[in-house]
């Protein structure tokens, strides 16, 4: 076998998180209507303002068209064949972790996210979301001592309605796009983070999303607000069982950073990607946007995208504050029949706003991996700067790497710079490493992680190793 073939084989490996938890689940009937939106809202005992928000979004959604501009191909989604609310049956309110169904705790244990007091990670607070609901949040009390609110968004609606009303939908409007409108109408659960003025969040915050049901859509909603001078680092992880049908995941994440605030948002996405023939897998249509509302505010997105059958995702920054900073660091690995169309938008509004984009796409198998980005310099963004770098690595001659970096500038006192390159793992490089005693798998893994280093360096310490491992895992397999 030639080493080119061997490299191709290396990127195929079984999905480790494909099990289904057998648990009694409360589901509503399939389909979407105004009544379903009202039902979801009433199940969650929401205040009127939120029901109005949902209904407005639903009506807008009905008027909208599903976007088709991305380099993606998939059969039409039947929105009436999806369940919009599913929750494990359990006590109305879990007072402590001890009351959480042990099957759920066990599920998260198996996923490497222990929640119990004894085993939980020492410096990371975790919000665990199972299908449509948040089942547990660790370290809530400790965080509360610092004034930090970290809880599920359903809980926040009840406990802190004024904050939700003030911020929800202010970054991603309910009619922003087709999938955001759908999410605004039917969102189930997600995390809420509030860091008050001047507080540097004492630990990493993390939400772990688990889709369990085969016919349920997941529509989580995350809102993170950092007040003046506050800072937080947040990580999101996700997995789903293996089904031969496709599940829709349409999330919305909104970040708000006021003056001098800083939010670092990292994602390690490992949804089920479908099998080698493209059967099954998650359709991941996600709207993520940060609003650098204050001067000198800073929002940084880091994503490691390895899963999903389809990824449609553009974590973006609206750089409104003067001297605000936006960053986007991305690794997207596609294999088999996976399709990813991902990138970012950096919208420079404020003077001297700066942004950096580093995107690394790795395409293997028959997959298609597109970077799509927009850098827009508005007329008032005097002195704005952007630097973008998009590199693609191709493994095998059937994978596609596409690059679509849009640049729009209306401000002469600004500078936009974009660079892109394409590379592969050459036979010569592999032989060189092998001739120094390094095995083929390790050689490939070293080169891939070298290719991704600029991005991994941005992940919080605890997760950088995790991401490296995940990628190595994706690249693990039989060498002929």
């Amino acid at each position, binding site marked *: 076998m030639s080493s080119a073939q061997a490299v191709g084989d290396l990127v195929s490996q079984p999905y480790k998180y494909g099990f289904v938890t057998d648990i009694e689940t409360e589901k509503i009937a399939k389909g979407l209507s105004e009544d379903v939106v009202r039902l979801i809202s009433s199940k969650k005992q929401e205040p009127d303002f939120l029901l109005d928000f949902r209904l407005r979004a639903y009506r807008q959604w009905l008027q909208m068209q599903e976007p088709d501009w991305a380099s993606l191909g998939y059969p039409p989604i039947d929105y009436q064949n999806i369940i919009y609310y599913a929750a494990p049956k359990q006590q109305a309110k879990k007072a402590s972790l001890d009351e959480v169904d042990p099957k759920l705790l066990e599920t998260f244990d198996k996923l490497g996210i222990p929640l119990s007091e004894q085993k939980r990670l020492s410096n990371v607070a975790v919000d665990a979301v199972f299908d449509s609901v948040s089942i547990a949040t660790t370290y809530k009390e400790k965080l509360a001592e610092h004034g930090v609110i970290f809880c599920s968004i359903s809980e926040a609606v009840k406990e802190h309605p004024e904050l939700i009303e003030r911020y929800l939908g202010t970054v991603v409007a309910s009619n922003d796009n087709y999938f955001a409108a759908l999410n605004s109408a039917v969102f189930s659960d997600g995390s809420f983070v509030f860091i008050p003025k001047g507080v540097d969040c004492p630990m990493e915050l993390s939400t772990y999303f688990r889709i369990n049901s085969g016919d349920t859509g997941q529509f989580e909603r995350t809102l993170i607000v950092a007040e003046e001078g506050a800072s937080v680092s947040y990580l999101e992880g996700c997995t789903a069982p293996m089904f031969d049908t496709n599940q829709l995941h349409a999330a919305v994440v909104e970040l708000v950073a006021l003056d001098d605030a800083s939010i670092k948002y990292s994602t390690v996405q490992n949804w089920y990607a479908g099998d080698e023939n493209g059967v099954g897998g998650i359709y991941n249509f996600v709207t993520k946007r940060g609003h650098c509302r204050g001067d000198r505010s800073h929002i940084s997105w880091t994503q490691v995208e390895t899963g999903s059958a389809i990824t449609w995702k553009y974590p973006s920054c609206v750089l409104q504050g003067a001297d605000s900073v936006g960053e986007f660091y991305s690794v997207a690995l596609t294999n088999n029949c996976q399709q990813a169309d991902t990138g970012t938008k950096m919208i420079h509004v404020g003077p001297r706003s700066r942004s950096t984009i580093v995107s690394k796409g790795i395409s293997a198998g028959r997959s298609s991996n597109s970077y799509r980005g927009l850098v827009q310099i508005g007329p008032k963004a005097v002195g704005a700067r952007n630097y973008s770098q998009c590199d693609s690595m191709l493994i*095998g*001659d059937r994978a596609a790497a596409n690059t679509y970096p849009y*640049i729009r500038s209306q401000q002469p006192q*600004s500078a*936009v*710079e974009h660079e892109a390159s394409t590379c592969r793992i050459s036979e010569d490089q592999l032989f060189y490493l092998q001739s120094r005693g390094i095995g083929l798998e390790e050689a490939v893994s070293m080169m891939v992680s070298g290719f991704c280093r600029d991005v991994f360096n941005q992940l919080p310490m605890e997760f950088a190793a995790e991401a490296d491992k995940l990628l190595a895992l994706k690249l693990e397999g039989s060498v002929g």
Partner: protein
Amino acid sequence: MTASLSAPGSSVMGRSAWLEPWLATLPAPSGPLEAVQVRGRRALREQPVPSSRQEDWRFTDLSLLQQLQQAPGAGDAAAAASAAALPPPAPGAFRLVLDGRSDPLDGVTLPEGLQALNPLEIGQGLGHTLAATGCEQHWPVELNHAAAGTLLALRVTARHSVRLELVSAAGAGLLPLRLLLVLEEKAALEVNQLLLAPGPGSISLVLEAHLARSARLHHGLVALGHPEAALLGHLALEQEPESSANLTAVSAGWGLARLEPRVLQVDGQAVTTLRGLQVVDGRQIADTHSHVRFNGPEGQLDQLHKVVAAGQGRSVFNGAVRVPREAQRTNAAQLSRSLLLSDRARIDTKPELEIVADDVKCAHGATVSSLQTDELFYLQSRGIGADQAAQLLQRAFCEEVLRELPAVARAWCPLEALQRQDGLA
């Protein structure tokens, strides 16, 4: 034609109210391009005029073309040409004046190595490269199909080297130019094409060139317009292995200029060089959509596109490069550099790279900025005034493309012409 399109003549009004009356003014289809005219007119009746709803036309407003309605048909291009004071023919170059009405080869003795294609060859070759490069149904091409009554169809015979000068000036109305160039093996052709619009008017250019093995084409286009003039151009090339093509296009002063260089390396192993410079000022729009596809291995592309945007000018650049699976060992580099000189001007740039082959080198880069302050400062620190320093730097910026024009075209002093036309300092 797509079956779903409506029947000729129906449902057109409203979408493009000016188009039908304009079509009615055209002479009945006749001559060597009769079939093409019929096809183009049908297509224009069926296809909507491009609008900002289409991604490819998002930023480019075609409303200026409505002036066609007021001044129908081919205008008095000959008068315009004399008014435009064409530069004298360059020594050693063979000049043809294209006025869109008379046969440019009438009473002309072609130099050695250059032959007119016969009707059979025209029948076989016309439209072939447009189809191969996927633009035969583009609206500007159909517009040319509908209006063009004359054709310049030439062959450069094997191993001959020819230098050609093509000169056209737009009068009122639309001046349609249709060219078909066939380069035999090891033939070399240098074309210097000058398009002028001294006043209101439009030019539609459709050029097809087929390069056989080891043929060389150097096409320099200098297009100097008027704020009330429009230019729509498609430059389509098919390259056989070991051929080399250089397309260098410079445009300035047009109310609307849209150029679409489209290149297909039919079997790879060819060299393509694309150079573009577009200058906008006032409320002008300049738009370049280039498209290069490698249908075989070891092809090369070197592309540099430059933009100077002043006033309320608007510039669009879209550079597509397609490297399919069979195009292993392709080496493609694309660079787009834009100078934004005014806070009311606008620049949109979008490279589009689609790569499937894994053993390729594809790099692209884009920059948008004003003049570099450190460069300005360096010149100023040597005693050069700020305005003069800016002028020097802008000239240097344009020179990088202008120097790639064939020598003859350089004799037209395009930079001076640009400076007369535009807000270049």
